[in-house]
């Protein structure tokens, strides 16, 4: 039974289409990952789920409560940890948690108990009474996470919670998220870190340009790719014409599937080779017949990056790089300001 249902939601900011008919279903008690490069629409999806912005169209429900019509009720169910940690620099961490507790109408006794529990759980004892303006990135993230958990939400929504964090803070947050999931909380985590989603998520969606391009468990998605991933190069930097010729050769070999040209990596060719067949000798012969030599050949177990590559024709890193400079972060920030 799905606890969170998202059906065909779309959202545009003037000429930018952030989400295009995105749908997903999340069962209760799941640690659910939303993976995608910067600019894919993750933050917009998260902000819609956190009731900060409304979609242009589509339906969303959490625990069968319509999110758009009953946003106040939804806010009682969710905890939200934003991508950019916004703390009041003048307040101490404890004052901030106290302030946040009052916004969630937690009574005085319960408030003190919850704050103490979270301080211990997130190992914040040493610095909780210092002003937030003196905190490091990891400390800020931990206090923000504590603020999101004060009212014991049914759903915790986190937008890239470990970006730029030190290993200690990252491990503490990862462990806490696992514990929360084990305690029955539904956790939604957006990230562009493959290893984070691979290690933590029970289920995930991969989004690109505002659309879901793959969904399932990490194992399911990787298994769908079949055998081992092979990356082939016939020279260090090839070209489109040459790459297309090699694709033709490879497609004629029985046992080679899912052939993709990876433009961003010097027109290398990625494909899946059937584990049962020893294809390397045949590959060499066929390439030599067309006057090609193998420059490099790498074999790897399928990863979530391969899933992304398979669906989009580029790796997640390349997608990140191609987005760099295209996004006007200042403009996006202004557009998302109330």
């Amino acid at each position, binding site marked *: 039974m799905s606890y969170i249902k998202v059906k065909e939601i779309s959202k545009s900011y003037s000429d930018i289409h952030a989400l295009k008919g995105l749908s997903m279903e999340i069962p209760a008690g799941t640690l659910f990952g939303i993976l995608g490069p910067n600019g894919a629409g993750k933050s917009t999806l998260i902000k819609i789920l956190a009731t900060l912005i409304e979609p242009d169209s589509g339906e969303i429900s959490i625990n069968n409560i319509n999110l758009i019509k009953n946003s106040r009720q939804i806010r009682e169910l969710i905890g939200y940890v934003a991508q*950019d940690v916004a703390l009041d620099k*003048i307040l101490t961490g404890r004052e901030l948690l106290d302030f946040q507790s009052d*916004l969630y109408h937690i009574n005085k006794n319960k408030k003190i108990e919850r704050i103490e529990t979270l301080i211990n759980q997130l190992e914040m004892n040493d610095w909780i009474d210092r002003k937030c303006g003196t905190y490091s990135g990891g400390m800020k993230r931990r206090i923000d996470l504590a603020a999101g958990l004060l009212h014991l939400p049914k759903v915790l929504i986190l937008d890239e919670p470990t970006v730029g964090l030190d290993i200690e803070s990252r491990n503490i947050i990862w462990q806490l998220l696992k514990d929360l999931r084990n305690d029955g909380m539904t956790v939604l985590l957006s990230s562009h870190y493959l290893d984070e989603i691979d290690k933590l998520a029970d289920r995930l969606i991969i989004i690109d340009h505002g659309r879901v391009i793959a969904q399932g468990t990490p194992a399911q998605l990787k298994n769908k790719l079949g055998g081992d991933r092979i990356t082939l190069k016939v020279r260090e930097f090839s070209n489109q014409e040459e790459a297309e010729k090699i694709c033709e050769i490879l497609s004629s070999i029985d046992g080679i599937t899912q052939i993709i040209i990876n433009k961003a990596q010097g027109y290398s060719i990625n494909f899946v080779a059937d584990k049962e067949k020893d294809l390397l000798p045949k590959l060499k012969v066929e390439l030599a017949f067309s006057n090609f030599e193998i420059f490099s050949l790498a074999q790897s177990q399928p990863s979530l990056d391969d899933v992304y590559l398979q669906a989009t024709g580029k790796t997640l890193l390349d997608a990140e790089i191609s987005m760099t400079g295209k996004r006007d972060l200042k403009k996006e920030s202004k557009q998302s300001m109330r």
Partner: protein
Amino acid sequence: MELKKYNLFFLYQETFALTKRLFIQLKRRPSTLLAGILQPIIWLFLFGALFSKAPEGFLPGVDSYGNFLGAGLIVFTAFSGALNSGLPLMFDREFGFLNRLLVAPLTSRLSIVLSAFFYITILSFVQSIVIMIVSYVLGYGWPNLYGLGIVFTTLILLVLFVTSISLCLAFILPGHIELIALIFVINLPLLFASTALAPISFMPNWLGWLASLNPLTFAIEPIRTAYTQTMDLELVALHAPYGDLTCKSCISILFFLTMISLIIIRPLLNRKLN
């Protein structure tokens, strides 16, 4: 009924928390409070001294220029504080702190606006009382109890009026630079185009018209009259080019302007906060 009782308590709880946050900020960064008190006091000394040798009867209805100036500076202090009240909200918008408030299940997001009103009203009262005490020490008088009621009623109306405009600007303008620039542009010209520093009879005709339409004048004149000790709401407080206005009329106009501004900003606040 039970639900309504809880809602009222929750509204109080969240408004109190939001107001408390503003006062913690003020306590740890008291420069705004100090500047807001020091500036009018310096003005009181300097401007008060400026016309100290003016002939008797130079100003209508008062003994000295300091006597005349006090009311103007009380209003100007409250006005400046209220005009700046949008700044914390603007910073919360810019730094994303407002999102923290908006994802919380607030009983009413009106609490965000209410907290700003409470904070500025209390701050303005504290600053005004300090200026009134300094004026008294300098020999510029003290209003009677009835007059004090008029002073604080007028100040509440002015603060509500200006704060609502400032909060509105904090939501409309793109950033704090633009808001500060606008405050700079509005602040002093409105002071000079009012009766804070000089009566209308001293002004050229066009400025007299401007001053007699300026909302600050409608706050200054009842307070000035409150200092005369013969406080009567039916007393003529303002000799405007379009006719004489009593204290009651001035306060009524201020009340009307406040209501209009609250009605105008309501749809904007609803759109921005819901």
